[in-house]
């Protein structure tokens, strides 16, 4: 029963995991490992989820913690034990929209250049998370979130002007 509930929650929020994996790993193989690692960590902490925070806040926290702490070699070992060589979350047929896709590609390229913490911040910012929620997920103060986001916005503007 718990497993069913877990599958449903993952199913409803799989885009969150997909975006985090894409932002932290450009290599498809590593991305698959990270995806499994995130799902594993989510499953492990699922029993402790008490509903005091929003489900997405909890998922962001676990998924970003995992992505930031992730190290390929370590996770490869655990992934081999799981023994899955295909993605659990896949994107089979997406409608092509040249303009939007170009912007997304550009955003992913910019995200790739950021450090691990800023990657998390920009993802949360783009996903319209409130500063208070970002602060709760990352464990830094709201004023710090605001400072860092202003800096990232400045960086984004610079990247846009060079585009």
């Amino acid at each position, binding site marked *: 029963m718990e497993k069913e509930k877990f599958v449903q929650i993952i199913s409803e929020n799989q885009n969150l995991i997909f975006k985090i994996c894409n932002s932290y790993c450009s290599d498809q193989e590593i991305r698959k490992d990270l995806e499994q690692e995130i799902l594993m960590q989510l499953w492990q902490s699922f029993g402790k989820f008490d509903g005091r925070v929003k489900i997405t806040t909890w998922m962001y926290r676990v998924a970003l913690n995992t992505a930031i702490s992730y190290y390929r070699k370590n996770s490869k070992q655990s992934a081999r034990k799981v023994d899955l060589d295909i993605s659990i979350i896949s994107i089979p047929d*997406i409608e092509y929209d040249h303009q939007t896709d170009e912007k997304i590609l550009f955003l992913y390229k910019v995200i790739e250049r950021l450090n691990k913490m800023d990657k998390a911040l920009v993802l949360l910012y783009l996903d319209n998370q409130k500063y208070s929620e970002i602060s709760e997920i990352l464990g830094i103060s709201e004023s710090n979130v605001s400072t860092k986001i202003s800096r990232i916005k400045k960086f984004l503007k610079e990247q846009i002007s060079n585009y």
Partner: protein
Amino acid sequence: MEIDDLQKAWAQYDKKLNENLKLNEQLLRTMNLDKSKKEMNLPFVHELVSLIVAGICMIFVISTTYKFAGNLELLLSGILTSIIIALAFIGAYKKIKILSNIDYHKAPIIDLQRSLLKFDKLYLKCKKIEFILIPVFVLVALPILAMGSKGYDMLEHRDRYLAILISSIVLIYPIVIWFYKRAYSNKLRNANDFISELNELELEE
């Protein structure tokens, strides 16, 4: 292009992902989540085993030392061995304490990284002490362990003592280095990458 355009594009992308992403539910179910849980914490399991082994060894060494307390050389060997084992026991206990407090669910990212760094610092300190103490441990532990387990007086057979001592040291170092590299160093490298980011954040606060 402005930041607002990017945000709008991201929102559209999110919507598109929502509509198109496919979760392979069967695969998620078959992913042996419960079993793999045990495989996830190699350092933790290693420290737990070290703690138990050190505890058992300490009881064995202390009782043997007590039994042969009349022999000064064995008494000294027993005391020094017990001290080294006690150090290993304390180190393992401290590491377990830090590792068991790490909680992916409740810890915000910064706290998690702090805990990992704390663990890594302790691990490095223990590793350094361990590397220095390996030859000392083999040297002092051989007589009391041989006497306690086989009733064999190693100090009476100095040539054999020296041969076992050298071959043990030659064997132990590569094994320990290999194991630590596999079980710990990757995490350590990753956490070290974070030091600069943490420092930067703390300076801003």
